[in-house]
């Protein structure tokens, strides 16, 4: 983590007065704030459940969990319209939940069932929901970044008001297509909001070892794209930045780039033994910067939530996930006779 990025976090964290002022300025109702809390809790429970299911031997493949990064997904979704297009990265469970995906269908896909979003063909890494304009997660790092150019171009050619939100990680920003795509969206003033979800590590590579100059978002400057770098563990700050960015993009004047600085609690994937970071570092983020804990504290102090209501929201979120697992486990496997379906239309 660079000094620049660290400052972003430390400046924002902690001040309740700043939180109240920001919420007021943004006109966020109590109901909306409680919804943000609820969705973050739902994502957190989904991810811990995924880990538990894996440990219980119920998951065939790999997974990339986003616990610790919930505020990014939730802040983005509040700032955009439900019919906006999403292109996502491999650590995408949270974004799908925040965009309103059916959690039963997600869990069924995670367990490889025929009732899942992709009929069990995709798994955790490729969940897509075309009905809600969620164009899917991508297993190739950075693979979706240039596709956003095409989505933005189609929206522009079709004279539509929706925008394309393309989310990728810090690692993806070092792929060549990142630069091709940024150049082209800027050149053609396409309605694309690029979001770099910097969770500090690629697989094990610290962003500071992988990136010659930080913050990553300053690279947008080279392409004439306006940018911001925000504390990705502060859901209101994420919303604030995304709202400005999304409004800019929707006005048809060109793309915008936002970097959200955050942290993942779990390893990169199931093979990760956390050899590249210390337990102390992980604990520090969990104890001092956790996005749900920070936000809930503000809600309690502002008396938007009471202690018991906060627990209730958390317990309800957990139940949603438990029911999704029940649905998924009771669902059928894909029929072997359907193996070759969906290759060609």
């Amino acid at each position, binding site marked *: 983590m660079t000094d620049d990025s660290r400052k972003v976090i430390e400046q924002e964290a902690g001040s309740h007065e700043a939180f109240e002022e920001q919420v007021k300025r943004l006109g966020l109702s109590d109901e909306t704030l409680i919804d943000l809390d609820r969705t973050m809790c739902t994502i957190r429970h989904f991810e811990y459940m995924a880990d538990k299911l894996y440990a219980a031997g119920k998951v065939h493949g790999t997974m990339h969990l986003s616990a610790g990064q919930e505020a990014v997904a939730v802040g983005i979704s509040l700032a955009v319209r439900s019919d906006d297009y999403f292109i996502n990265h491999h650590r995408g469970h949270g974004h799908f939940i925040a965009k309103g995906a059916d959690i039963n269908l997600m869990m069924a896909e995670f367990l490889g069932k025929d009732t899942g979003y992709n009929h069990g063909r995709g798994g955790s890494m490729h969940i*897509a929901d075309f009905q809600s304009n969620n164009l899917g997660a991508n297993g190739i790092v950075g693979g979706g970044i240039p596709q956003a150019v095409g989505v933005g171009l189609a929206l522009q050619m079709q004279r539509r008001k929706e925008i394309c939100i393309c989310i990728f990680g810090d690692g993806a920003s070092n792929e060549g297509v990142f630069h*091709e795509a940024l150049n082209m969206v800027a050149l053609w003033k396409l309605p694309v909001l690029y979001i770099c979800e910097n969770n500090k590590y690629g697989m094990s590579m610290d962003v500071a070892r992988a990136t010659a100059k930080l913050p990553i978002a300053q690279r947008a400057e080279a392409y004439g794209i306006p940018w911001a770098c925000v504390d990705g563990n502060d859901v209101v700050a994420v919303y604030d930045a995304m709202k400005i960015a999304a409004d800019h993009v929707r006005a048809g004047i060109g793309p915008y780039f936002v970097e959200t600085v955050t942290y993942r609690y779990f390893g990169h994937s199931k093979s990760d033994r956390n050899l590249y970071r210390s337990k102390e570092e992980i604990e520090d983020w969990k104890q001092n910067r956790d996005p749900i804990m920070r936000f809930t504290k503000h809600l309690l102090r502002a008396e938007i939530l009471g202690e018991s209501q906060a627990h209730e929201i958390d317990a309800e979120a957990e139940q949603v996930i438990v029911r999704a697992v029940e649905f998924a486990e009771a669902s059928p496997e894909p029929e072997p006779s359907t193996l070759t379906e969906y290759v060609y239309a």
Partner: protein
Amino acid sequence: MPEISYLEAIRQALWQEMKRDERVFLLGEDIGCYGGAFGLTHGMLDEFGPERIRETPISEATIVATAIGASLLGMRPVAEIMFMDFILLTLDQLANQAAKMRFMFGGRTTVPMVVRMPAGSGTGAASQHSQSLESVLMHFPGLKVVNPSTPYDAKGLMLAAIRDPNPVCFVEHKVLYKTKGEVPEGDYTIPLGVGEIKRAGRDITVVANNIMVMKTLHVAEKLSEAGIEVEVIDPRTLLPLDTQTIIDSVLRTGRLLVVHEACQTGGWAGEVIASVVGSPAFDYIDTPVRRLGGKDIPIPYNRGLEKIAIPQEDDIEQEIRAMVEGRI
């Protein structure tokens, strides 16, 4: 029927389809006033304007990715990759993305797009601008690979490719661009995945693609005078490959030769031969089955060396004679 060139036939297909369907647009490098490296899109910018004749920076991977993204939103993009060699810069988007999206996403989307790519040697363009990589593309289920040899086929296959709901790699041959043939002015399509017997003959089946179809047809006319009747099959689409037409032909002729410009090792001739010898036609085969591919070397610059790097008419003739005369 008007006689036009292979290049003009492809342009006519693009032009007519853009008139018919406003979702169709072209994108690629220098396809505007320059008309593309081979002039194929010449005049189209004036007719359709810069939004639909979309000139791009030199960013091949993102050109293909842009076609993918636009196709997901209902557009019908036709991307030009200036030389087929440059598809190697786009393989993630073609092979990991476009080819797999429909399958990975459980059949919930389609990726209707065409990527045009001029292939082949014979222009002195050396090793990085002369390859025939169609065999590479055949290894990615989800893609279709189309490879016309005549102006008539080029137009009909292009119209079918644009209307196909799958990602189609449209492989053109640079040396064929100037060849002429009769092409109807109206709308017609040739179904993808259906081969054609370009010339009927009883003695041997020769399967060839693009320029090798032309070379083999010349050889066949010459051999006919010597009493050898060659059946020439052009698969037209390499993926999916119409193996049935080939198997049926070998059942009649009992001999099979496959000719392509692509490097022999790993070339699609192996696929054709495996399909035939694994079929009931095996019992009807009289002579060892043979393939004649490009030499397993990069394409050289020097005119003489470039020529002998790929099968020429003399090579094809000798091979057919040896097989028919029982010298193999």
